[in-house]
Structure formats: structure tokens, C-alpha cells
């Protein structure tokens, strides 16, 4: 197993779950890196030159080579540092992990974003769609300690935000999807996930998150009111 000695930088933001996905996997694999906090209202030259197409974080820069898009970064890390794999060896099991990660990112996450950014009927509709997606995830986690089986894996890291960020998002925007009575298996998973040492020791401050979401919700509601005027 080769040690990759080249310089490793992660451009991200400390409040975004997409950055934390990467941090968790780097920590799980014991990889050293420098974290560079980006101000998204004033993007750095490094970010704009590293991800000229989307101009988004996170971006991993390894020996000067830039890799954007969190899922693609996770796969790159997995294929470059072979210690503590987060994906199964078997191609079929691997395809299933990729499927679930995509499902969560495309069917659940956008609905939560919508619920957070809307009010009234639009919010109700988003909550319904989010709930339906969460029911599917509940079915998938049932009977398992983690999505990855006995140890946390790719899917756990991708959906990990549900165990920590979701509650604060719901509080700030006054809606509730992750009802523990309705989703008992997911709630067990959330506890299991947060108990993993690498995760427990690598989470943003809950107060910072609460303030951030509260302020962001204000901004969203103000702009909605502007639209109506």
C-alpha cells in the first residue's frame, strides 16, 4: 500500500454537510490534509480555478489536481487510499451503495431544501415528498446497524447529515419529517452513527448551526415576502 505523500487540501465550509462527508472519510482513513474555509459570498481564486464549471465546494486538491463534487471526491479517496475501505469489494454490493447514496441526494435532500426554503402549501408538499423518501430509507436500514452493515460505510457518510443537521433545519423552518415514532430504525441508526468515534469527534458546533439556519430561514422568508409584494 503506497502512502500518498503529495499535498492534500480540502476547500469547504465548516457548516456544510457536504464538506463533512469528506472530512469524515479522510479521518476514517487516517489521511492528513489542510482544510481551507471558503467564504461563499466572496469565492477565492483557488476555488474558482479549481472548479471553474460549478464554482462550488467541496473541492479536494491532491498534489495540485482538483477533484470537485462530493460523491466523486469520496470515490477518488476510496480508490487512492486503500486503508479502511468504505465501499464493499463486490461489484454488485458496490452498485447498491452508489444507488442509495444517489437516492438520498436526489430524492430526499432536495425536498428538505425545498421545505426549508418555502412556506404554506409549497412547504407541505415538500414535507410529503421528503417523508415518502425517508420511508424508503427506513426500509433499507431496518435490521442493520449501519447502511454499510456492521461498520459505517459510503452510504452512512453520505446520509450522515440526517443524524445531525436535519433536526436543526426542521427547527429553524418549523416543519417535522424525521418523527422518531414513524422512523424507529432510522433513529436507531442516527444514535449508532453519532456514537462512532470519528463522527462524534468531528461535528460542527450545534450552536453555530442553529444560528446559521435561523438566519438563513429569515433571509428565505424575507425573499418570499418580497416575491409576493
Amino acid at each position, binding site marked *: 500500500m503506497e502512502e500518498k505523500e503529495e499535498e492534500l487540501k480540502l476547500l469547504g465550509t465548516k457548516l456544510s454537510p457536504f464538506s463533512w462527508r469528506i472530512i469524515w472519510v479522510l479521518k476514517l482513513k487516517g489521511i492528513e490534509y489542510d482544510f481551507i474555509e471558503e467564504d461563499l459570498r466572496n469565492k477565492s481564486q483557488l476555488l474558482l480555478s479549481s472548479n471553474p*464549471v460549478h464554482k462550488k465546494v467541496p473541492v479536494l486538491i*491532491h498534489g495540485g*489536481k482538483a*477533484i*470537485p*463534487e462530493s460523491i*466523486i*471526491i469520496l*470515490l*477518488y479517496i476510496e*480508490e*487512492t487510499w486503500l486503508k479502511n475501505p468504505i465501499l464493499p469489494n463486490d*461489484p*454488485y454490493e*458496490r*452498485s447498491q451503495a*452508489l*444507488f442509495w447514496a*444517489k*437516492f438520498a441526494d436526489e430524492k430526499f435532500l432536495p425536498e428538505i431544501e425545498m421545505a426549508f426554503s418555502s412556506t404554506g402549501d409549497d412547504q407541505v408538499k415538500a414535507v410529503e415528498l421528503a417523508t415518502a423518501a425517508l420511508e*424508503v430509507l427506513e426500509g433499507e436500514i431496518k435490521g442493520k446497524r449501519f447502511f454499510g452493515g456492521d461498520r459505517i460505510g459510503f452510504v452512512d457518510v453520505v446520509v450522515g447529515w440526517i443524524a445531525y443537521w436535519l433536526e436543526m433545519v426542521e427547527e429553524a423552518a418549523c416543519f417535522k419529517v424525521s418523527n422518531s415514532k414513524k422512523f424507529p430504525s432510522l433513529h436507531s441508526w442516527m444514535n449508532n452513527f453519532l456514537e462512532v468515534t470519528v463522527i462524534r469527534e468531528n461535528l460542527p458546533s450545534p450552536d453555530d448551526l442553529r444560528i446559521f439556519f435561523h438566519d438563513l430561514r429569515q433571509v428565505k422568508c424575507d425573499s418570499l415576502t418580497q416575491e409576493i409584494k
Partner: protein
Amino acid sequence: MADEVVLLNAWVSPFGSRVRIALDEKSVEYQYREENLQDKSPLLLQMNPIHKKIPVLIHNGKPICESLAIVQYIDETWKDDKAPPLLPSDPYQRAQARFWADYIDKKVFSSVMGILRSPKGEEQEKAKKEFIEALKVLEEELGDKPYFGGDNFGFLDLSFVAFYSWFYSMETLVHFDIEAECPKLIEWGKRCMEKKESVAKSLPDSLKIYDFALQMRKKLGVD
């Protein structure tokens, strides 16, 4: 033990074409099943209960969904002299190929659907602009290479060439000439069709796609 490989597809789907090209590149024998998307088969609903979409690859009874995941599965499962690798072996080049395939899914597909589904007017013009911009970005990525994969046809080539049969429809629906805007892309598309049997066999005829597009627009009431 003989492998049983089944592909559930619809002939118009560029996503299905990707899988057909990949299977052909690897000389995999499979059973093709055409799905009627207005009347989905019990097998499709059973194999892809969550999205109920094609393509679905069923390998010895186990389903794999989502075209890019299927292509990666094919690449990892069939690996021998008959079966050249589709993805590069270097992790950084793999990341690049995945990035651009994701870009195609996000920007090319959505703008094609935008052009297809919108009535003539502002919305369709907006989709046209997005489509041309995406093509230009991809042409820049291609540069002077014969294929996106370099000297050899690979994952990114097959991910994008699947849309080649839709070019005629796009040009005709919104009146522009892709060759004038992106000559290198057209050269590349023609190269894929001429040099790669898997591509020529797997892509539906452009005129048939255009017929389908017109029928769809009539059904949607946008024409």
C-alpha cells in the same frame, strides 16, 4: 455457471444506449427486453420498485439501476482480454470521467428535455441556450483528442455519444446547426459511429428519434 444477463430498456432512451454500448464493448451476451413505458411490465416494477425506470440490468436475477452505475458495474464484472476497460485505471482520470459524465446528466439531459417539452417561445429558447453552452463546454474538454478518453474510446465517450442520435432532433426543433457551433463534437460523433461497432449497433436512428420527438410534443400539446 452460465451468466444470465437481461437488459430492460426502451429504444429511445440514451441511458439505455449507454448500457447497450458497454455490454457490446465487453462482448457480453444478453437478453434484450423492450419496455412499454406507458404499460410497465411486472418485471420492471419488481426490479426497480423505487424509480420504476429503465434501463435496468439484471445479472443472475440481481437488478442494477441507473445507467452510469450499471456501466461501472459492467466494467468491474467483465474484465478479460475480450473486454477492454471502460474507465481509466488512474483514480484522478476516473474522477475526471465521472465528473464529466455527471455534467452530461445534469446539463445535456435537462436541456434536451427542456427543448423537447417546451412550446416554442422563451422557455424553449432558454433550454436551447443551455444545450449549446453545455456542448461548447464539452467540446472544450474534448480538445484535439480523438476521443474523450484520449486515444481510446471509454466511459465518457459512451456516456455522451448516447445523446448523438438526439442531435438531429434538437437542431431541427430549435433551428440551429451543431456542426457550425461545435465542429469537433460532430467530428467526434461521426468517428464513434464509424469506428466503433458497439456505437453503430446501439444507437437508435436519428430520424426515428425525431418522429418520436414530434409525437411526444403532440401528445404534450406543445406543438
